[in-house]
């Protein structure tokens, strides 16, 4: 079957979709957007989290046909989403005194692409919340959504909001740091 939907603001069409395919499969294998990850395909790990009509969902549990006509935002579209939300301040302008600041700025200027990162993406790098990185895209989508709804979360709020995203590498401590960092930067307006 044919499926049409919008991904990260762009209309997309997929043809010859098998009816049992998930939205995750179509994103990864048909649309060239493998950022959403296939860790469990049973809704237990959150690594495939995308926003479907604005709401975080496990894309492995959405049948491709159910996405017809809907709007999907994946990790690949997070930076654009963040830019639309804010007034376009560069994420590279991190406040002084942050851990890893020197490297942060250097990576920014070196790659020339960090200005395109969403604040939550920047914070995950800076806080050391990324190891193997397989859980990272889903966590970023979930954390970004939480900070949109709850800009000043308590630790318990963060843990609850991210309880659907498994990470096997970090022990979650640096992920907590990253979300706190993103929240702090957000509240300082950077």
């Amino acid at each position, binding site marked *: 079957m044919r499926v049409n939907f919008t991904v990260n603001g762009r209309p997309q069409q997929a043809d010859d979709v098998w009816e049992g395919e998930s939205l995750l499969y179509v994103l990864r294998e048909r649309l060239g957007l493998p950022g959403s990850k296939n860790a469990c395909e049973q809704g*237990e790990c959150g690594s495939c989290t995308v926003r479907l009509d604005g709401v*975080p969902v496990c894309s492995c549990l959405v049948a491709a046909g159910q996405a017809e006509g809907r709007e999907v935002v994946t990790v690949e579209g997070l930076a654009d989403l963040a830019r639309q939300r804010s007034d376009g301040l560069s994420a590279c302008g991190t406040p002084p005194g942050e851990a890893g600041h020197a490297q942060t700025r250097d990576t920014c200027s070196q790659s020339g692409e960090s200005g395109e990162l969403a604040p939550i993406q920047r914070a995950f790098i800076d806080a050391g919340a990324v190891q193997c990185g397989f859980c990272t895209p889903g966590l970023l989508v979930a954390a970004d959504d939480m900070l949109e709804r709850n800009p000043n979360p308590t630790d318990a709020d963060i843990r609850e909001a991210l309880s659907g995203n498994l990470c096997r590498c970090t022990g979650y401590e640096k992920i907590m740091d990253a979300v706190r960092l993103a929240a702090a930067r957000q509240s300082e307006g950077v």
Partner: protein
Amino acid sequence: MDFLRPASWEEALAAKAEHPTAVPIAGGTDVMVEINFDQRRPDYLMDLGRIGDLYEWEVGEDSVRLGASVPYTRIMENLRTELPGLALASHTVASPQIRNRGGVGGNLGTASPAGDAHPALLAAGAEVEAESVRGSRRILIDAFYTGVKRNALAPDELIRAVHIKKADGPQQFSKVGTRNAMVIAVCAFGLALHPGTRTVRTGIGSAAPTPIRAAAAEEFLNAALDEGGFWDNGKIITPSIARQFADLCSAACNPIDDVRGTASYRRHAVGVMARRTLTWTWESYRGTAHASEGVA
């Protein structure tokens, strides 16, 4: 496999009548797992996601008509007052992502004894609105679960909504899992006080082939509360009553040993949850109705 996309409820009923083996999919949180893991290959998948009515709810005089696909997140956020037990149960469903998609209709359709909504529905009192091209009917929740993952729906029927009694007293829900979030129930317990009728209702999950009520426990407690004048005097329920209620709830279970837990633990845990949820709800009832009363 064919993918059916009815644009309206009528179309969905017609499709289901034409293809009784069609598997309805809404949140997808059960169906897609089975498809991804090659455990199920239905001839037809029928997407109910386009039928807006299923995502709406109405708060009536005595009950809430909850559309079958209203996501758990909505229930938690919007129906905490009217359906406190179900709101608490909704909060224990899997993860935020799953709660954003899954709804009570899916729990009922799958009819797994581990479905989180069931104990809350049983305790609150509910009717399932099932419909087919032949007509609509209401199935009492107590009669809905007919076996392990079986329910009272006819092959051509779909669940349109659930009519749940609005809370007239405190309700609680508790679930044991071996993880502190995102866990399938080892067993679960729902309890609702109904001061209007001076009754207590219960619901037990994952401790019998189907979700059940602890009928004998309810009877005992209703009588004991009545006898002691507790509804009026608002005194603390005596430990012996609470214990006996808990024991009767345990005795109502007919659990199995499986990879999630043992039968004897399930019985035990249901008893503990019964006692605790009774204490919490009763404290809440006393707190609102008889805050100044002393210990019985």
